């Protein structure tokens, strides 16, 4: 299983801080597609993704147990 984390505006759109999905062997791009079409969380498309706290590209393949976070445009400082 994989834990998917949402933050800021994305968390508000998702209505959840996190959800669990089995994405083993699938790509981040596929996960974005799933979240946006099946869960209507379309803001993932403007977000960066991080796997286990490191930024990754859409091509990244998820392994079982990975934590995936979607990072909307940041505004710290």
């Amino acid at each position, binding site marked *: 299983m994989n834990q998917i984390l949402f933050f800021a505006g994305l968390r508000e759109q998702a209505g959840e801080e996190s959800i669990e999905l089995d994405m083993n062997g699938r790509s981040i791009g596929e996960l974005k597609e799933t979240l946006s079409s099946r869960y209507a969380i379309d803001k993932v498309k403007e977000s960066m993704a991080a796997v286990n*706290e490191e930024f990754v590209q859409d091509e990244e393949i998820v392994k079982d147990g990975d934590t995936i976070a979607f990072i909307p445009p940041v*505004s710290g400082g």
Partner: protein
Amino acid sequence: MGEKYWISDKPLVIQEVVDLVTRRNAGAINTFIGTVREFTKGKRTLYLEYEAYKAMAEKKLEEIGEEIKEKWPDAETAIVHRVGRLDITDIAVVIAVSTPHRADSYEASRYAIERIKEIVPIWKKEHWEDGEQWIGDQKETTYGIPAKGDA
């Protein structure tokens, strides 16, 4: 090294951050303090809320410290960012960089704040009289992995 880069939900104390970089071989310490401003483009902010992906944010702050070390080997850096509700004039971030000579302290400190705005997963929600909104930094509306180093 990790204890010099952290996210806090308490009011920030400038002196504590400066103490972390004060040392016998530094003659210059530059600090940058980001505070909550009341007016942005004529719009009045009542208060802000900051949210972080804490574990990753602390890791990214430390990474910024490492990038600085590569570019300015004599620099020591400490950074704390606050989360939660912040009122006008409250401190959101404190950066302190010590270096033997002053020019480097300015440059490295400036580098740190620019990188925070690029790669650290922290978000602010503005609360105005007539609404609220999560703010995305203009820099990050293009998609991709933030570049390392030369931003």
